[in-house]
């Protein structure tokens, strides 16, 4: 509704300044939900925290992991959240209750696990030194199916030597990242040898594979439309690809092409990239830098760098772009704070006084012929009432917003998660005075034992510069 009144579309559509800092423990992973009203953060101590972006406060905290969270994935409806940790398991949380819906154990730590875009009972997990799994948890006993990592071979000759060599190579291929296409019919997987495989989710066969880079593929993301793919690899180059339409009726695997669109890199500093993200529309690409404080934002039309965000003196890890707004969230590697960059729309002063208008330059005022004519009060009133013949509809909503109907999940509001929960280093003592929280000070937390972040907090506090901008 506020879009009807604001000129925010005139503003630039990438963030320019840091607007807030939030903190709950040491965050290592971030993910926005599809609607963009909640931000999930995973902590080093295994706690998953849901932030409400409207209030910038904690909406939920869920404990179940005891190792650092590696990945988070929201279901389409926003009710379920899948989290993986270094402790060999994944938990699907039900945000209605805040309890775990399902728990799945692996034989290795999980790099990531992404939920099917339409079905929250299916997810694909890529594991450390293990073959990736397609997990179906719709039944009480979860069904795990192993996905191939070895690239598709075109030759079918029975050359024993070659086969052996290939088998050796294939054994070294490990999937490090696996994501769904927008339709959920295919899985795009990146391997430790820089190969990209497209796997049919029904037959579990690789229908296409190509070597796209030399290093390990660390991150892969697609845009909301599902037409563009973003790949970060350890060869210090970020690549974007166009994803072909894989959902056509008679898809011939041999005709699939994955054209490379852009390569983003810093040739001067030879920077390598911690994490990458697409903007809401895919127009921009943002990346956090290794051993550096800046965030880089490129624009994808021309492939040019548009800005570098460098507010906090800290190296940033995971970064996330809000699904609809020019808002970027990143978590600091050292302190585990979550930094949020956004655009600040200026107050329109004419909005405060309706009889004023903002003009660019002086305008000579032309007086209307009848401007100062005097009429009887009743006459004016009657005319006004007569003029109100317009048809109004107070019920029908904007048809373009109808799509919101399908995800009408509303997270219950928990009361008084409390100031204790913000876990700021600074505690307000009285107006204007702040005191540093002593390390042992009670967080009134349910599992105080899991609060391994206390020393980290102390370290962060020593920097002192990060006085959070609380509103």
């Amino acid at each position: 509704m506020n879009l009807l009144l604001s000129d925010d579309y005139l503003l630039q559509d990438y963030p320019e300044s840091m607007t807030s800092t939030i903190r709950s423990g040491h965050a290592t992973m971030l993910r926005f939900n599809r609607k963009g009203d909640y931000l999930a953060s995973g902590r080093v101590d295994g706690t998953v925290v849901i932030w409400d972006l409207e209030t910038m406060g904690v909406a939920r905290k869920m404990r179940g992991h005891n190792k650092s969270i590696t990945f988070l994935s929201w279901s389409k409806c926003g009710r379920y959240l899948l989290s993986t940790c270094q402790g060999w398991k994944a938990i699907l949380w039900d945000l209605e209750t805040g309890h775990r819906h399902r728990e799945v154990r692996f034989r290795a730590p999980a790099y990531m696990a992404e939920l099917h875009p339409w079905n929250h009972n299916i997810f694909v997990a890529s594991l450390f030194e293990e073959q990736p799994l397609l997990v179906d948890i719709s039944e009480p006993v979860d069904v795990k199916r192993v996905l191939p990592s070895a690239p598709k071979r075109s030759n079918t000759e029975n050359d024993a030597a070659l086969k052996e060599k290939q088998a050796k190579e294939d054994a070294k291929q490990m999937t490090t990242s696996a994501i769904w296409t927008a339709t959920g019919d295919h899985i795009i997987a990146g391997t430790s040898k820089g190969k990209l495989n497209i796997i049919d989710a029904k037959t579990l066969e690789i229908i296409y594979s190509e070597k796209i880079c030399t290093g390990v593929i660390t991150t892969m993301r697609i845009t909301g439309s599902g037409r563009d793919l973003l790949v970060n690899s350890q060869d210090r180059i970020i690549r974007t690809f166009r994803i072909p339409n894989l959902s056509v009726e008679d898809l011939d695997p041999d005709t699939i092409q994955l054209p490379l669109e852009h390569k983003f890199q810093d040739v001067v500093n030879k920077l390598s990239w911690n994490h990458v993200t697409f903007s809401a529309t895919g127009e921009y690409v943002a990346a956090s830098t290794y051993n550096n404080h800046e965030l880089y934002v490129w624009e994808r039309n021309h492939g040019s760098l548009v800005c570098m965000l460098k507010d906090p003196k800290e190296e940033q890890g995971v970064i996330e772009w809000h699904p609809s707004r020019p808002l970027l969230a990143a978590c600091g590697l050292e302190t585990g704070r979550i930094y949020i960059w956004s655009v600040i729309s200026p107050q329109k002063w004419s909005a405060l006084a309706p009889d004023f208008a903002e003009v660019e330059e002086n305008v000579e005022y032309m007086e209307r012929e009848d401007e100062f004519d005097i009429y009887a009060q009743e006459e004016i009133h009657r005319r006004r009432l007569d003029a109100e013949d317009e048809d109004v509809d107070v019920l029908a909503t904007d048809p373009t917003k109808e799509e919101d109907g399908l995800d009408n999940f509303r997270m219950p509001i928990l009361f008084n998660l409390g100031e204790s929960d913000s876990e700021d280093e600074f505690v307000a003592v009285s107006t204007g005075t702040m005191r540093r929280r002593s390390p042992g000070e009670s967080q009134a937390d349910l599992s105080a034992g899991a609060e391994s972040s206390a020393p980290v907090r102390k370290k962060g506090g020593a920097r002192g510069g990060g006085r959070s901008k609380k509103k």
Partner: protein
Amino acid sequence: MSSPDELARDTPPPYKRRRTGDTPSSRSSSPDVLAGDPHDFLPPRRLSQRGGGLSKSPSKPPQYLDDFSRSQSLSRPLSESVRRSRSASSSGSRTRSQSPVHSTRSPTRSPRSRPRSQSPTSSNQSRSESFSPEPQQPTPTPPREPLKPNYKARLALHGHTKAVSQVRISPNGRFIASASADATVKIWDAATGAHMDTLVGHMAGVSCVAWTPDSNTLASGSDDKAIRLWDRVTGRPKTTARKSAGQEMAPLRGHHNYIHCLAFSPKGNILASGSYDEAVFLWDVRAGRLMRSLPAHSDPVAGIDFCCDGTLVVSCSTDGLIRVWDTSTGQCLRTLVHEDNPAVSNVCFSPNGRFVLAFNLDNCIRLWDYVSGSVKKTYQGHRNEKFSIGGCFAILHGEAFVASASEDGDVILWDVKNKEVLQRVQGHKGVCFWVDVHGETMVTAGQDGSIRVYRHIGPSTEVNGDGMRSHSKTPNQGVLQGELPIRQDDVRLEEALS
């Protein structure tokens, strides 16, 4: 020289307009009108019973209440109580008006008691007659339209000892919350009218209540400058969700003056409050933390509402301005002001969030298109000159109406499009402060300390003709009689009609 005249003229206009029961003549005149009114459906035993019920009330001994009201009226000097429209109204006026009401009413009521004892059919007839000689009704019942609101009085809920300033139906339609000048909030069952809980904790009159979208939590704002959150299920102040359970949540403090209006965001995560300190506060409900304070107006904030997607807040004030705010940035996006600059006493968004309904103290309700900044419709026919009177959009079978209370005690329903009065429901003696509609249920709050529940009776029962009427009414009556044994000592439900 002419000191009394000077004084009278010196009174600031908004205060003058919002003055409660300023002259004894105006006060005593209103009961007269009501007493002569043939539609006053209250059975004669109500008043006597009410007196008895009060003294018997177990939760609040009358001694305490008297003390309380006295201390309250002491703590607020006259100038203040004049400024205060809703909750302050009762303390002085009640004692003045009560006795004449009793005396003038009882004779007129006695003929009314006869049809009550008769069969349902005849009582029905007397009801339909009672609406026909309506003097103020401007529309002489046009040819039957497919949908016309037809709210009939069903229950009268007594229990508050002072004027009821606001009444709200919970979003799921099952409960009614009422805020009163007697410093309590009461929760009632919307279907049966049974009294469920009395929320005691405020130190002064309560002006406003708001339900969270899940209907499980209630916020109340009071003249003691605090906002309290209540658990509907337990009837206690909201407790923390953490290990230190049982610890009651502290009231939300921060306003420097009386809280006058409250609204929850559609998600329930933000609470907006408007106060006499002229500011609008946005609270993070989860943490009980003040999130944003908007320097909103130059007069008391009289009304506040969230739009359906939660991105906009509208506030209004007696300074005549209606301001639309962006929830996320806290910026004012639009200011609406009418040329005549009448004080605005209440605002609400249309169900789709595209329009703002503003209740002006010049006997008009205006429907604003806030995007274009123009008045689309003006609804007239009610009386609203001094009180902060409430209303809302009513939705019945996919049709929207505008419902508003009126200072003559009635409730008026308008057609949104052609601005015609569709129904005028007789209600309270004295001012009717608030009306809330949830589908077929309508609730009003009045200066007389009572809450009335109305129910829409669809056209199907009426079209059937006279012969069918008695038949169609019987289940309704059966329901009512079935519920009557729930009566409690301090809470009486009455089958309001018949």
